[in-house]
């Protein structure tokens, strides 16, 4: 019986990873009516089930190559009955599965942290329902093989995220949510418009199908620019990053940690469009350069905007922008040399590995840093660094976790941030030494910024606000501890992540023919 059930889950994993959190989200308010405890157990069990199925999907993808699932077909593998993929097709390769496992892992961590952080606030049934909707939106976005579904999942993610940002319903949070909603809607409209432009020419919405027949007409290239800009907006690349500090700064701290992963889903879409849909465009290297410039601007502007901030969450939000720059730089170098096999083998692939490795590292250390910021706010009731002092006296564990996160984001050995940054520095150096120097300077500025936070919040004498209370509750520091341990583990054993997840993800991204062949 159990074997049959596991077999069913394995065969239908691409659909279940979206369906489980989505159905669980709608059932959450019902469980909430029974009791808070039952609701919390329901949400955790739903996310554990999603995690289990996502892990199965990842295992299948790594063992047998990409998994294709056609919704509504008599046989899920029947993608193109008449040589024409007209149904909604979920297509999970190593890159998609890599992003999906990051999303669901962070969802679980954020969920457990939220139980005590949100405490007895009202509307928590909606909070946890929206958390599950965000999870479904992210996983759907990274596993869909269809441009229109991508738009739908992006909208699902954006609407749920906007509602989460507005959770406190104060002036600033409502304003941040409004800005996020406007920016997301305009970005989504660009995507819808681009999908329409492509559909009008080829009668196709499937990414693999489109990649197989695309002729790179003027309209196609305009669609590329619209998609590229819209996803750059969603991932918060400079100069399209303005919403990030508002949204991350005003959302509840665990939501900010989860928004980091939501932005990374936008980054995934940017990579998928550039490598898979338009990978065959003769001048795609131009877009690689655009990605590099976005990366350099994001790194530098992000970190220099972070340093003067006195709101701890806005400071961390700008650092999120800065770190996105590293990913764009690494993957952008790969895209810029995609048609030069020698350079791709010499440093391009390694730069991409660094960039993709940084995605998961960033989810871990930025997630941890937002959670430590949440712990500080939980105890002191303020986000203002000027009102904090001496927290190390009363919150020793949070202090240790903050140090681990800060050293990792600054790229100091032996933490995981160093491993991915080293790969980016050394690969990018061979492409252009100046870019590598900029990346290193940004790391130094990042360290300076976190020294400021450490000094002002944790060092010095105790002040009245920080003197009360002590360490945060067990469920909060426990999940921070898990992230801190993972950061150290993957810093000391980066090869585990690199060999098992990152390299297959990069290979999948570069294998355009394989992605097309999965459907057609």
């Amino acid at each position, binding site marked *: 019986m159990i074997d049959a059930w596991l077999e069913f889950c394995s065969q239908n994993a691409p659909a279940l990873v979206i369906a489980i959190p989505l159905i669980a989200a709608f059932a959450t308010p019902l469980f909430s009516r029974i009791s808070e405890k039952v609701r919390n157990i329901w949400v955790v069990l739903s996310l554990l089930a999603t995690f289990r199925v996502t892990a199965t999907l990842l295992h299948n993808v790594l063992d047998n190559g990409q998994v294709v699932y056609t919704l509504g077909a008599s046989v899920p593998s029947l993608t193109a009955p008449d040589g024409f993929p007209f149904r909604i097709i979920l297509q999970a390769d190593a890159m998609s599965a890599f992003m999906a496992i990051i999303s669901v892992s962070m969802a679980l961590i954020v969920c457990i942290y939220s139980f005590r952080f949100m405490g007895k606030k009202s509307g928590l049934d909606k909070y946890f329902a929206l958390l599950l909707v965000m999870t479904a939106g992210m996983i759907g976005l990274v596993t869909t093989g269809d441009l229109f579904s991508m738009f739908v999942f992006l909208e699902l993610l954006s609407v749920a995220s906007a509602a989460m940002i507005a959770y406190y319903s104060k002036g600033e949070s409502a304003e941040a949510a409004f800005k996020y909603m406007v920016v997301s809607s305009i970005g989504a409209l660009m995507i819808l418009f681009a999908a329409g432009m492509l559909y009008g020419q080829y009668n196709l919405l499937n990414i693999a199908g489109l990649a197989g027949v695309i002729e790179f007409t003027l309209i196609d290239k305009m669609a590329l620019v619209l998609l590229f800009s819209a996803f750059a907006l969603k991932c918060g690349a400079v100069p399209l990053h303005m919403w990030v500090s508002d949204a991350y700064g005003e959302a509840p701290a665990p939501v900010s940690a989860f928004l980091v992963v939501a932005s990374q889903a936008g980054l995934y879409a940017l990579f998928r469009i550039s490598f898979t849909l338009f990978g065959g465009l003769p001048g795609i290297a131009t877009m690689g350069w655009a990605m590099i410039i976005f990366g350099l601007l994001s790194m530098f502007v992000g970190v220099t905007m972070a340093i003067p901030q006195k709101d701890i969450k806005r400071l961390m939000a700008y650092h999120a922008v800065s770190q996105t720059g590293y990913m764009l730089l690494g993957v952008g170098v790969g895209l810029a040399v995609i048609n030069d096999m020698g350079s791709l083998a010499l440093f391009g692939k390694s730069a991409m590995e660094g960039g993709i490795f940084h995605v998961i590292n960033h989810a871990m250390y930025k997630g941890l840093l937002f959670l430590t910021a949440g712990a500080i706010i939980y105890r002191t009731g303020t986000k203002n660094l000027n009102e904090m002092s001496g927290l190390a006296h009363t919150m020793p564990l949070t202090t240790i976790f903050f140090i681990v996160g800060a050293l990792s984001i600054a790229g100091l050995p032996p933490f995981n941030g160093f491993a991915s940054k080293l790969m980016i520095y050394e690969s990018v150096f061979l492409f252009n030494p100046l870019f590598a120097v900029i990346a290193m300077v940004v790391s130094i500025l990042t360290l300076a910024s976190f020294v400021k936070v450490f000094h*002002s919040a944790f060092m010095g004498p105790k002040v009245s606000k920080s003197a009360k209370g002590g360490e945060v509750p067990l469920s909060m520091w426990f999940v921070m501890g898990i992230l801190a341990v993972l950061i150290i583990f993957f810093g000391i054993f980066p090869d585990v992540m690199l060999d098992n997840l990152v390299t297959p993800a990069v290979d999948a991204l570069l294998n355009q023919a394989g992605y097309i062949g999965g459907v057609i």
Partner: protein
Amino acid sequence: MTGMIFTPAGYWNPIVWVAVVIIASVIVFMLRSTGRKTFKNGAQQIPFYSGNEAPRGHIKASNMYWGFFESLEKYYIWLRKMHTGIINDYVYFLVIVIVILMAALALGGLL
């Protein structure tokens, strides 16, 4: 699970790094333990601050890196002007980016 990763310029082995840090820490501890044990509490604990009394209290976040912001004042004025917080400006930037990317593709001979 060796911990090693390879880059185009060589390799990185965190386990060796951790081992070196542990050995260096042991050496530092051994050197420290050879120090004088005649240290007295009180006057010797006051930090030397150019002959002046060291400032007491806590330096707030807003007062840190003053010199950095002074030397980059013009850059920061420009940066703050850019971050208006007005939603219309966010959309203007998107339009500007789209135009620049179109121009880049045209200049690259792709349009």
